């Protein structure tokens, strides 16, 4: 397809007196992992529901794979897979029965169905336990099975609401690899929500940050960090930085913390002290300064500044 996989224009969704989505506009290109980030209750699940046609927009326009889910919901759902807020597995059925049920829903022919189920259960390390009732499984195993179910019919677009929640670090890493492979090798668009910012930064080509239903940030993780600094300054010096100086610097009024960071001197400042003040102080102590620059915000700091403007990170 040539257009965006997902197009959201001026979308508003109200629940009685609560505005869950507030004039959200964004385009998600096909074949990438897109991260939709925000605190609990920010509107992430509501957007997925609107995109799947499970909730109607109050106003605005939404297009998924070129179709309007409010009017062509069946066609949209036929081309998508989803792991929603809850894993949605039938706990009284075995793993194989769960996947067989969904394969029947997607009308996969018997041979394709069996091969695909074998392939996915093996890839997610669940093949040996395929006949066990899912209700007896750990949360992580259920989560892996739910991801397998979402991609069972090879949809071009997959919605995954916190897919790595409850997974151990090894399983999370393996799932991240799998999602990256889906996007890069199979051209699948992955719409992902997660609270794991390191995961989002590593995996997502593009992220959207939502706060109280409003899209407060949209771009690559690098672009969101760009132009924001953590509130600390980094000083590169060719000579004069000693342990005694660092200790003395820590005592200066307005300095919260002074440490070595790589080859640099990292100074966390409080309100009231300016960079020129510090440069003058350092020069007076005999430090041979080569470069002074604001420390770039981490992705987490950038995210916090987008969801909580009082979080200290500055633009």
């Amino acid at each position, binding site marked *: 397809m040539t257009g965006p996989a997902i197009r959201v224009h001026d979308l508003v969704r109200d629940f009685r007196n609560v505005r869950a989505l507030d004039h959200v506009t964004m385009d998600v290109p096909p074949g990438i992992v897109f991260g939709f980030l925000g605190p609990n209750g920010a509107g992430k699940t509501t957007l997925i*529901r609107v995109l799947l046609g*499970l909730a109607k927009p109050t106003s605005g326009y939404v297009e998924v794979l070129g179709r309007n889910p409010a009017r062509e919901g069946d066609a949209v759902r036929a081309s998508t897979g*989803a792991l*929603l807020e809850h894993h949605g597995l*039938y706990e009284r059925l075995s793993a194989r029965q769960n996947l067989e049920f969904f394969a029947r829903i997607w009308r996969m022919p018997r041979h394709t169905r069996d091969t695909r189920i074998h392939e996915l259960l093996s890839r997610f390390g669940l093949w040996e336990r395929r006949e066990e009732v899912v209700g007896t499984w750990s949360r992580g195993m259920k989560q892996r099975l739910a991801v397998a179910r979402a991609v069972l019919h090879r949809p071009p677009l997959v919605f995954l609401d916190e897919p790595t929640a409850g997974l151990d670090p090894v399983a999370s890493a393996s799932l991240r690899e799998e999602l990256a492979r889906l996007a890069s090798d199979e051209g699948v668009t992955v719409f992902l929500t997660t609270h794991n910012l390191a995961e989002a930064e590593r995996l997502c080509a593009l992220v959207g940050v939502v706060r109280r239903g409003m899209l407060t940030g949209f771009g690559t993780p690098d672009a969101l960090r760009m132009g924001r600094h953590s509130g600390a300054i980094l000083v590169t010096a060719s000579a004069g930085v000693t342990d005694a100086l660092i200790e003395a610097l820590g005592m200066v009024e307005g300095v919260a913390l002074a440490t070595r960071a790589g080859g640099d001197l990292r100074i966390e400042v409080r309100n009231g002290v300016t960079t020129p003040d510090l440069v003058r102080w350092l020069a007076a102590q005999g430090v041979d300064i080569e470069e002074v620059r604001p420390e770039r915000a981490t992705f987490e700091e950038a995210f916090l500044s987008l969801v909580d403007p009082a979080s200290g990170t500055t633009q």
Partner: protein
Amino acid sequence: MIRDTWTVAHKEWMEILDQFMRFRRGGWSILLVVFFLGIFVPLQLGPGWANFAVMFFYWPFLTSSMTSTIVSDSVAGERERHTLETLLSTRLSDASILLGKVLAAVLYGYAFALSNLAIGMITVHVRYGDRAESMSAERFFALLALLGASAFFVAGLGVLVSLRAATVRQAQQLFGVILLVATMLPFGLTQVLPTEMRERLAAATSDLGIEGIAWWTSAACAALAVVLLTVAIRRFRRGDVDLG
């Protein structure tokens, strides 16, 4: 849509069978019911067991009871177990999801009643040999129609209750009360009719015979089931359903 309905019904059956095979949540009680109704009662009533007039109340009641145990779980159960949203996120149409659940419940009630009937027949024939009475074809088909129609009526009612209930327990409690009222209402209404009307009604039903009453009751149940299922399908729409 028929294929999708069958897919959903098949899944429901897998869950019911699993529950039965593991003797969880009522598995044992079902075996007790089979023993009591399929073996004990026929032995007590003797060789004419199959043709007792009371059986025309007993079998629909059994079918309805068994259907009701499954259907109250249909939507409320999916909602409570957080599987409803995932099901709705698939390509299945709203109607096929709902009808699949109804079909599974109806087949369960129907199969349960018929298997009890068959066990009863075998029991009576084994115990009484040639003295055991068989059911006439006319009576048998009237009974089949009545079982099916009453099961669909109960399923239609139950799925409407299940749609509104937040939990399975709430659905079962509410449905129990509604079924009680629905069962008692015809008897109560005949009591408040003037004597002359009651006599005319008695004469009319007497003329119809037990099979005729069964066919008319089946028709009424089927008509009500169609109305109830239509209302349920209209109410069960993505975007309007409470996902819990």
